[in-house]
């Protein structure tokens, strides 16, 4: 009996820590490809520094291009992360534990990449320092600095806190051949964690505070990002709904990102036992809710604009609905709204491929949607001049590719440094399960019924022992 119990918890550890221990050729090759793309992006950036912004497609009318599209996109999927994980934690959704770690990782990586984008967008990136020295608080750009700094710090803390017990576990499992540096870093990061009740109490209190705090900060970040647009008098931007529109859009693309990342890691690192169909299905329903909200806000936005139809709005809507940007706009509508909705609603075929297709479509469409928000508004002339044009140059495409490669690369490296699922929370979750629905619990966690039974027995014994001590 005891041996079986050990095997269940050992199995969790083995599965979760496996990616950290073993590194295959495929992985190295993948990292090399990513590094190559990143290097190509870096070369493009050097070209841009050398020749100036004239090497991009941005000109005096269309002053913002792919960089700002990427900025909004990455800040958007960063919501995945922390917001979704914090909401699930605050609402005590029982199925959240295998999901939260990856969501939090998306946040930290996406926000780091996203925050670089406005700096790349500058003709003189060395002058970014000026916003610190001369920043004026009436500028939405300074609001961006405020909330993105707070969000990045907060999500780092929020990623770190639940990591502490897992880092302690890794510290204790390090083999003899581990380097001194690795041993020392894990020891330092584990802050002397021994899983005593008092330590646990402090950590859980800290996590509880952060989960509540991070939600308004996450909302503020994307609201402020939208204010950069909506505080201007441009058609399509001058909108009071932009704050919530961007927040919902961010949650929407964020959930889609979680689904993609989760299924990828499940496949690559064989996490099928812990990330089950149920997790993907539940996230699919969340995706549908966000989709419907976003659809509602989109219809409301264009309907109120189109009903009044001022001259500039007319130009904008023509550009979007029938003009130069129509392919992009309708791509967003069909690939981002219609098809994913059907994929979630019509429950035919296997769940996971269906949700992944929906999630990929949503992320592509939401990138396109950000393009449709940023570019056409700038093309509409506010003075009696001609329409602006914009065609991204190879420099912009290369830097964009580099940004995505960097995003994936950091993820790939992080996957080798920290466990992708929160081991202690999953274990705790399994212990908490009541004995009655044994079969269901086994199905959920992917354990065999005997293993579940054994786990429950151990948990009960421990609980009895705990009561005795008290």
């Amino acid at each position, binding site marked *: 009996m005891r041996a079986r119990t050990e095997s269940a918890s050992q199995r969790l550890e083995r599965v979760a820590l496996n990616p950290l221990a073993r590194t295959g050729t495929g992985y190295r090759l993948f990292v090399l490809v990513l590094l190559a793309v990143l290097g190509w992006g870096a070369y493009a950036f050097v070209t841009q520094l050398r020749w100036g912004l004239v090497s991009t497609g941005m000109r005096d009318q269309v002053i913002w291009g792919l960089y700002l599209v990427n900025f909004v996109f990455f800040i958007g999927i960063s919501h995945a992360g922390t917001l979704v994980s914090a909401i699930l934690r605050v609402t005590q959704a029982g199925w959240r534990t295998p999901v939260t770690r990856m969501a939090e990782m998306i946040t930290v990586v996406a926000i780091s990449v996203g925050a670089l984008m406005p700096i790349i967008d500058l003709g003189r990136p060395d002058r970014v320092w000026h916003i*610190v020295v*001369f*920043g*004026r*608080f*009436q500028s939405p750009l300074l609001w961006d600095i*405020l909330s993105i*700094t*707070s969000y990045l*710090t*907060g999500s780092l*803390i929020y990623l770190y*806190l639940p990591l*502490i017990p897992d880092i302690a576990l890794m510290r204790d499992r390090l083999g003899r051949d581990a380097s001194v540096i690795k041993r*020392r870093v894990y*020891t*330092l*990061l*584990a*802050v*002397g*964690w*021994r899983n*005593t009740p*008092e*330590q646990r109490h*402090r*950590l859980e*209190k*800290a996590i509880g*505070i*952060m989960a509540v*705090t991070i939600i308004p*900060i996450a909302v503020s970040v994307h609201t402020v990002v939208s204010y950069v647009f909506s505080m201007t008098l441009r058609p399509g931007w001058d909108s009071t709904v932009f704050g919530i529109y961007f927040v919902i859009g961010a949650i929407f693309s964020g959930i889609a990102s979680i689904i993609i990342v989760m299924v990828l890691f499940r496949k690559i690192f064989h996490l099928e036992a812990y990330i089950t169909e149920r997790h993907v299905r539940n996230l699919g329903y969340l995706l549908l809710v966000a989709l419907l909200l976003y659809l509602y806000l989109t219809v409301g936005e264009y309907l109120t604009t189109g009903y009044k139809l001022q001259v500039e709005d007319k130009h904008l809507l023509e550009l979007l609905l029938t003009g130069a940007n129509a392919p992009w706009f309708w791509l967003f509508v069909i690939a981002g709204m219609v098809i994913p909705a059907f994929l979630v609603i019509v429950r035919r075929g296997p769940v996971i491929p269906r949700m992944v297709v929906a999630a990929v479509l949503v992320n592509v469409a939401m990138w396109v949607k950000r393009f449709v928000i940023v570019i056409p508004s700038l093309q509409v002339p506010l003075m009696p001049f001609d329409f602006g044009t914009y065609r991204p140059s190879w420099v912009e495409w290369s830097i964009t590719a580099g940004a995505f490669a960097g995003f994936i690369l950091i993820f790939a490296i992080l996957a080798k440094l920290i466990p992708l699922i929160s081991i202690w929370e999953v274990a705790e979750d399994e212990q908490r399960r009541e004995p009655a629905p044994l079969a269901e619990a086994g199905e959920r966690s992917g354990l065999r019924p005997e293993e579940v039974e054994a786990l429950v027995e151990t948990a009960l014994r421990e609980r009895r022992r705990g009561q005795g001590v008290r």
Partner: protein
Amino acid sequence: MIGMRRRLVMAAVASAALLGVAGLSWLATAAHAQSQVPPPYAGVKNPFPWDNPAARDAGKRVYQQSCTGCHGAAGSALPAADFSQAGFHQRLETEPDYFFWVVSEGRPAQGMPAFRSSLSEPQRWQVLTYLWSLSSPAAPGAETPHPGDVFIALTAPQEGTAGQPIVLKAVLRGKDGQPIVGAAVDFAARLYFFTDGSIPMGEAVTDETGVAALTYTPRFSGDVLMAARYETVESTVRVNVAEAEQPFYHPEAGIQLPALGKEVFIGPESARTLGPLGFAPGVSFRLPGGALSWLLIVAAAVALVWATYFRVLYQVLRIPIGSQMGDTDTRLVPAIALAVVIIVGAFLVLKLLTGSYSHFNLGH
């Protein structure tokens, strides 16, 4: 009389153009009202006696709510439908169904709305009963002074400018020539804006000399008939209001919000006033100053967030040290994190409060 006839002809031409045959038949209706009133209304009678004071007072209230905008307080604002002209009460008595029909179905071509859905049937009759009292010399128990008992005279400068205040004075005298004290005089301007209309300018109470003075800043221009009315007597005067040379309405940029301290203004001084033709001025920023400025609220929110980070990391710092951890300082990471949080948080808050464009530098 000529003017009235011309209006009638114009109305006829316009109606004919608009409604064709229907318009022509309507002309006939206007001429021979009693014979042309359509079925639901033909032959209906006022359920109230014409001199019923209760119905009259109820009708007055309805009239003041729904009718004064076009017909004026005395019912004489529209010459084509002047309820105060002598003999109007006799027309009411002889063809009540016609007037009830007009009130109910309106005269869309002339701008008279239909009241069938907004006023109940008794209410419509009450209004007609009130209209009867306006021209009837024998309205018994009338609280209003009879025209002729009261004398009103309005004086105003002949010339004015839009946006510049003018003083209107109405002298009110009783039958015996004594000033009427403490009476409320209504002032209104008669303007043509698609239809003849009356714009209320305000109300003033007569002083002990019987003079009601109203200072009014017109926002319109042109040759305007201004009227002072007390109960049923009215006096008009024509004022030529010249167009303003500069935008006069809201000449200041931004909104003046109540504040505890000196206002913070960021931008060139020229941005305080609107440009020519009322165009928006250059970029500027106005904020209420003092202790309750929104900047302080923002700074407090940022401080709160970073204080929370501090608190959370402090919890981590206070995680007790395991016994066999003697060789490494396990508090190093949280201690560094705490220092970073303090430095960045303090920097952001101080940046808000002491930045080169913040309250500290601009409020003084």
